[in-house]
């Protein structure tokens, strides 16, 4: 129920101390509330006049109000803590994304991280709120009330003491039974509950297959089956709440009977009996609160531990400031020797791990990286871009030795053009100026002219200020790539261009039109270009052929064409039969 890592969060210990004090106070106020209520009632029972109950009644009212005031303060403190701490966790999560982002994303899935950073944080906040208050109430209120009840009537004290372990025992037994039943059904359960969404999303397909009308009946049948199963599980799942309820109310009933018998015997005056009866529900209240909202607590706990696992995942030891500031030019060189990169187990990679013997790049070379899908092209490109840290590598930039390209000064020289560009929500101008937010309007216009965007932008009603990205205007794949190209044109001082299959999704005519622009961008840049579109090879002066994470062949295109090696075979396979 409680994650130990919670206590390591900043401010938690102070919070617990403050809460402990407040709750202790609250326990006494609850006690007084009961005590004075009982006093007032005893006086009324003795048929005394209204004046005699005014004092106890006033004290009762004060205690009652104080109790809820303390509760208010308690909530305020916990809520502030919860919101601050969960915000802090979100901020750390974002730092983490930035630090080890890409490999983290490929492991956990982007959707999961977005959900974790939004809904996950809300769940955690709620969890903090529930767990601390309930925990404190459980710790302080029942014992204090119990001690008082013992002083009033030992038999009642014993009765109340015995019921609690009984409640817990029942809840554990029933909880376990429910759990095992739920676990057994869980798999089918999720399928059934997602069935409806599956059917809605598949509706066009059902229509094409001529099944959509008949399928409506299926929706009802499956949904009703889901209802039947839910009810079966629920019957057991809420048994534990039932047991708690049953034992606590029955406890009160038994108590009343005992007290009644004691009173008849004359062994007990009315006041202790009444105060015990009044305090008994208060005694059980924290326990009942603790067990309600169990699911919210559980969800919060799971969200928290999943975020903790992200935050604690192998911290990178490499500093990203090993490499001194550099300016890539004609005479610069990059040598990579004996580079090994392995994906962690369970990482959902679709690409091979790397084992690279030797790569040497220099000046404004244009290097093509080709290979079938899953050959390690993307992994290689991403290690060269510094997105992935190799397990082992001997890298030299000019004359400096480093073991990873995840270096600030290396990445300052890069422009990266991926297969599916990501457009940020904002204006076109902001997207173009992403590498260089300080760019002037003139510079942005120049870059968009160079990248062939100008005509397109002039057709937009808001021109450069048009909002794109999420929720903005839909932009075709070709225009998206042009925005990436404009970015690179604008940040012309970045002399290394890394492309990861930038035209894979484009239609042939768009690609044809784009090629001219891209060739212009290539000039005076080191170009590393992963592709499976063969025509690009002609623009390259060096080709690396990847196969199963290793370099199968490398050399100038001409030399590779000349002999029948991995390169020629790959080209033949890709090309297929001709007209």
């Amino acid at each position, binding site marked *: 129920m409680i994650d130990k890592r919670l206590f390591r969060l900043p401010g938690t210990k102070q919070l617990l101390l403050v809460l402990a004090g407040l709750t202790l106070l609250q326990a006494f106020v609850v006690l007084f509330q009961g005590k004075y209520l009982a006093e007032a009632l005893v006086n009324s029972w003795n048929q005394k006049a209204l004046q005699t109950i005014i004092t106890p009644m006033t004290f009762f009212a004060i205690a009652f109000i104080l109790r809820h005031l303390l*509760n208010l303060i308690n909530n305020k403190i916990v809520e502030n803590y919860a919101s601050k701490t969960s915000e802090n966790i979100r901020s750390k999560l974002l730092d983490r994304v930035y630090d080890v982002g890409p490999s983290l994303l490929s492991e956990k899935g982007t959707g999961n991280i977005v959900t974790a950073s939004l809904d996950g944080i809300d769940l955690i906040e709620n969890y903090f709120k529930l767990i601390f208050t309930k925990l404190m109430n459980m710790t302080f209120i029942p014992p204090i009330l119990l001690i008082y009840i013992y002083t009033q009537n030992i038999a009642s004290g014993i009765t109340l003491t015995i019921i609690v372990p009984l409640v817990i025992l029942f809840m554990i037994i029933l909880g376990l039974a429910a759990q095992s039943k739920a676990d057994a059904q869980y798999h089918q359960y999720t399928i059934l509950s997602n069935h*409806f969404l599956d059917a809605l999303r598949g509706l066009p397909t059902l229509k094409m297959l001529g099944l959509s009308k008949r399928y409506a009946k299926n929706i009802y049948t499956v949904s009703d089956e889901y209802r039947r199963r839910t009810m079966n599980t629920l019957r057991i799942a809420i048994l534990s709440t039932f047991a708690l309820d049953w034992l606590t109310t029955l406890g009160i*009933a038994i108590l009343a009977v005992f007290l009644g018998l004691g009173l008849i015997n004359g062994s007990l005056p009315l006041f202790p009996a009444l105060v015990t009866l009044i305090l008994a529900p208060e005694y059980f209240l924290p326990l009942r609160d603790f067990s309600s909202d169990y699911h919210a607590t559980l969800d919060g706990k799971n969200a928290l531990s999943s975020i903790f696992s992200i935050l604690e995942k192998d911290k990178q030891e490499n500093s990203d400031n090993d490499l001194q500031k550099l300016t890539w030019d004609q005479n610069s060189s990059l040598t990579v020797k004996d580079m090994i990169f392995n994906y962690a187990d369970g990482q959902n990679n679709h690409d091979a791990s790397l084992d690279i013997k030797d790569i040497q790049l220099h000046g404004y070379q244009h290097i093509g990286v080709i290979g079938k899908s899953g050959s390690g092209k993307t992994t290689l490109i991403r290690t060269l871009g510094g997105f992935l840290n190799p397990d082992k590598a001997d890298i030299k930039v000019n004359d400096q030795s480093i073991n990873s390209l995840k270096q600030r000064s290396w990445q300052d020289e890069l422009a990266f053009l991926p297969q599916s560009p990501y457009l940020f929500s904002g204006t076109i101008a902001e997207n173009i100026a992403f590498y260089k937010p300080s760019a002037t309007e003139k510079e942005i216009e120049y870059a968009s002219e160079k990248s062939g965007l100008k005509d397109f932008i002039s057709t937009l009603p808001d021109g450069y200020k048009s909002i794109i990205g999420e929720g903005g205007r839909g932009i075709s794949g070709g225009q998206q790539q042009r925005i990436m190209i404009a970015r690179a044109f604008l940040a012309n001082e970045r002399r290394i261009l890394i492309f990861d299959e930038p035209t894979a999704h484009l239609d042939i005519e768009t690609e044809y039109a784009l090629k001219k622009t891209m060739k212009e961008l290539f000039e005076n840049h080191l170009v590393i270009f992963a592709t*499976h579109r063969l025509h690009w090879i002609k623009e390259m002066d060096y080709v690396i052929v990847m196969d199963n994470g290793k370099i199968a062949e490398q050399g100038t295109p001409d030399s590779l064409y000349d002999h029948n090696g991995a390169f020629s075979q790959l080209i033949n396979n890709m090309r297929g039969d001709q007209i």
Partner: protein
Amino acid sequence: MKVFKHDTWVKPYIKKYKGLLVSVLLLGLLTSFCAAALMFTSGYTIDKAATQPVNILLIYVPILLTRAFGIGRPTFKYIERLKSHNWVLKVTSNLRTRLYKTLESDASFFNEHHKSGDIMGLLSEDINHLQNLYLRTVFPTVIAYLLTLLGSLALGIYTPAFGIFVFLLLVIEVVVVPFVSVAIERNRKERQKQLKSSLYTKLTDNILGVDDWIISGRFNDFKNLSAKNVKELNSSKDKSKSFRRNRDFVLQLIFAAIAICFLVFTNLTMTDNQEQANFVAAVVLSLFPLSDTLIPVSQGFEEWPQYRDSIERLNKIQPVSDQLPEQIELAPNDFKSLDLNDVNFEYSSDSPILIKHFTQNIKRGEKLALLGPSGIGKTTILQLILGDLVPQSGEIKINDIDIQAIQNSRDKIFSVLNQKPFLFNTSVINNVRLGNENRSDADVIEAIERVGLKDLIESLPDKYNTNVGENGARFSGGEQERIALARILLQDAPIVLLDEPTVGLDPITENNLLDTFFNVLNDKTIIWVTHHLQGIKYVDQVVFMNDEKIEMQGSPKELYQKNTHFQELYKMDQGL
């Protein structure tokens, strides 16, 4: 409450399963009653016992009742929870069926909406929200109101003035405060929703765009992107929380006032003789358990705005009435040709005309490839051919029958395979069998063999019963296409529409897949929308569209020999 004026998603269902609904409310009421009665009888037991009656039998009945109510409360509560869930889930089955049927009636819904995010996910969530509306707002509120009425009535019978007085206090507690708090919080909640959705966008920008952030080195901008938004959202949420805390405090104050009234009232009116005084504790103590029923009403009201959105969204979806002409049955074997004559189409009168004077004649068995830049309307042409869209002018005919006249039996004539074929979250064999549910297992397996998946699937532990996972995630893109192709083979319609089935696949997978497509679909008529020229040799006709007209058309060989632009494109595609 305007929301309910034209509502057809909540109101009608309240009437459904009326008996069950009434029993749910009754049980809820009984639960609260037993809770109060337990304290009542135990209070009385003690008071009565304190008078030390000679005969223990005098408190025998209250003791018995105390036990009965002690058992009754949890039992009724347990049954009430089960029944209410049962009722809600029954209604849910109805709502789901209805949502499905409504969407099913409107094919164009998908064309308009498939771009705007996950509308399906949203709608299915809405139905879940309605479940909570009942369980968390409607039921508790109705029960609290009934309790208020009955409780005040019971007091009123005893002392009318006091009954009315308590009633007024209770009305403040369960009616005035909840309504006022919804009114106060409404705008803030609305704003929070906007902030939250904009925060979602920003966090998505952070996370999906992380590559670009890293390369750009703009760490501070990365961190600050959502900061302002978070700050505003949190400060607004803090206000809501503070409001909620204060409101709950006020609710408790009102409750305290009621308790004091009870104390004074019992002291004034019930102390004339001991027999009456024995009821004092009973009456006062029975009040306290009721706070569990009364105080949460405001909480339930607070969730209302969220439910309102769902109700409004669901009410916006309207079934589309069938406007099809009289339907004609066309036997698949009788299909001879498909004609598009001078077809013009625009999505709406203020959007540009998308398809201009498009004419094409496709004979049985012919294979045609349709190319052109994205956004030019290639997919729209397929939708026109299917009859999902209706052209503003021109005609689309099969043999001599208008396409709109064969809609009821269109699945006998057309098969469609698109970019991301939809696989249902069930076994491979069930997915393929959807093509034709009357075929035997052997036929289904044969189709899977023909699309080249036999070896792969038989190597899996569950073989043909392997679950394909959500959206077919268990299989790669190429494999998903093959499973969908097997489905089409079973469907066995004479015309197959392929909508960029190989986009995003690597060239080797693409070559193999195209080879399989044209091999197993050899006897079909194929209209193939594609984005480049890989596999173009398989077709008889190539049609290049641009935004004005058909730019070029002919057999691939002919075009390659005569048309330089085609030649250039082809050479580029092949890397020659």
